[in-house]
């Protein structure tokens, strides 16, 4: 009767026995299976029936892919812009969020409010934040390309920062029982407690945060591109083409956004496997 929940346990043992490679393969194979199913549904127009939509709004994948093929160079220019924004925003945002979390964890009295305030920034909708940032960064550079990149990166950084902050904060304070006492008996300076205890303890939490931060950075990039001064980017193209009712082209860019997302996800998984290899397996 209680088989289900423990079936997993058994398979866990089984998996532990099987090689690590097989496990890694599963991470790719299972999504690939579902991907194939979706692809077939989509191509055979079954998806259109399910979603009650037509070929116009949801063109066939083959058509989308051939469009990507014939406009590859153009598309890459936009992909580059978006990637720079996403990576820049993620790096700054996650660092910012993590630093605020560290401040909050080491000086809870002062720092905790910082969490709420950073959260408040994340609550200002991108539609409002993006134009404000455009204005605030006008003097950054005389090059429109540069200053609008900076504006977009700031927006992404604020949005992802808030989420990194919330999750890593928990990782920085939910320490193993008595670990803080242990450090106290060594009269470890705050720096050491941070380096040897809090930061390592927070790493699994950081990856949870990244799992959310990566897609939301891409999403924010796409939306903030609508408002950017310099015309470039995947999001901008999606919008232009939807306004022009060019859904095939729009979907081509959406697909590209998804590929970026999946690439980032795989990267994240690989990274987390490497960084968390010494940590007890979760679940």
């Amino acid at each position, binding site marked *: 009767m209680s088989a289900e929940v423990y079936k997993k346990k058994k398979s866990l043992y089984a998996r532990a026995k099987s090689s690590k490679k097989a496990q890694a393969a599963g991470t790719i194979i299972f999504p690939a299976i579902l991907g194939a199913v979706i692809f077939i549904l989509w191509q055979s127009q079954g998806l259109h029936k399910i979603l009650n939509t037509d070929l116009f*709004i949801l063109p066939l994948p083959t058509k989308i892919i051939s469009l990507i093929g014939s406009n590859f160079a153009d598309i890459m220019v936009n992909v580059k812009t978006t990637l720079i924004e996403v990576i820049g925003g993620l790096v700054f945002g996650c660092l910012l969020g993590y630093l605020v979390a560290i401040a909050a964890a080491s000086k809870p009295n002062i720092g905790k409010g910082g969490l709420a305030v950073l959260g408040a920034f994340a609550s200002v909708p991108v539609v409002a934040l993006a134009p404000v940032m455009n204005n605030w960064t006008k003097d950054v550079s005389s090059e*429109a390309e540069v200053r609008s990149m900076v504006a977009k990166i700031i927006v992404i950084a604020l949005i992802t920062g808030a989420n990194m902050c919330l999750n890593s904060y928990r990782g920085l304070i939910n320490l193993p029982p008595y670990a803080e006492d242990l450090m106290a008996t060594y009269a470890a300076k705050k720096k050491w407690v941070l380096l040897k205890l809090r930061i390592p303890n927070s790493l699994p939490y950081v990856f949870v945060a990244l799992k959310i931060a990566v897609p939301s950075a891409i999403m924010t990039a796409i939306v903030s591109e609508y*408002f950017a*001064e*310099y015309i470039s980017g995947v999001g901008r193209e999606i919008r232009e083409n939807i*306004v*022009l009712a060019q859904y*095939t082209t729009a979907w081509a860019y959406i697909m590209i956004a998804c590929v970026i997302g999946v690439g980032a996800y795989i990267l994240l998984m690989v990274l987390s496997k490497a960084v968390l290899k010494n940590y007890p397996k979760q679940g």
Partner: protein
Amino acid sequence: GSSKEETTQTGSSAEQSSAAELSSEDIIKAAAENGSVGNWGLGNEYEVLALLSKYDLGSDYLSQDFTMDGFDDDSITLASAMTYNELGLVKNDYDGGYGYGDSVEYIDMNDEGVAMLEDNIFCTEDFAKENPNTVAAFLYASLKGWEYAVENPEEAAEICYTYGSSVSAEHQAYMAEEVAKLVTTDTQGETVTDIGNMDEDAMQQTLDIAKEYISLDDSDADAALQSLTLDDIRDSSYLEAAKSSDGTFDVEKSEVSIQLKWLPDAQFMGYYVALDKGYYKEVGLDVEIVAGGGDIAETTAVNNGTVDFGVTWVSNLASANAGGMNLVEVAQIFQRSGLVLVYKPENFE
């Protein structure tokens, strides 16, 4: 507050001294070389592209966000503006406006010969074929609304208010005045009396510019666009039926809706007047006006049947049809381009 007025004054004195001597060509060239021509893109840019190409300039322009802040801080020296909207905000000093008064000048697309026609009324061809009387009735009442509105813009502006306009009262009044001009003047500056007329030359010019400057990544769609003719995008029979009617229609569908291209304001005052004055009721229609302005394009909404009629620009309609939709324009409300490129003369001394 005070600094604004000062700049305004210096601006206007500068204008008197030198800018008048510069031709629009000089200004466009100077701005383009500077990389500081602005437009919103998203299908608004073709006239600007045509203009740039007319003077053999590159096709780069800066993206304007919703605001005119870029123009204000001189990061965009030659900014796109609609006469009935942004231009008013730049000039006027009511709440929200930038208060430049007459110190700014502008280049008019109509004068440059690159005008494209904007707001029209359209529906799907299938809908029109199945409901010819409904279409004619709708046109009849809408045009009646527009006629009233262009004659009484102040009242029309107030009517827009009652239907949830989201602009300030002063700006609404300004808009109504300017929209009336667009409805009653053609690209050559001549007065138009038959509102809704689909002027062959102006439409052909619009389509030609669209064909040249709309760039579609989808090669099938691009080929379709190049082969479009006026007959593929408009059908004047409904307008004729409406004009020749006595005002009584045997409508096939009495509950219809129209999706606007943007948020409710005086740009669409004709429909609000028709609704408010009961013109739609008179022809046996129960009309719902659906505000636009968003991410579900009006062409998409009409095409998938969420709404029956829509207001869009001719170029949008052409690209939608090129992409595989089957839409027809049934009336052309704006008879000339509302787009201008506004600049501060002192930037071009």
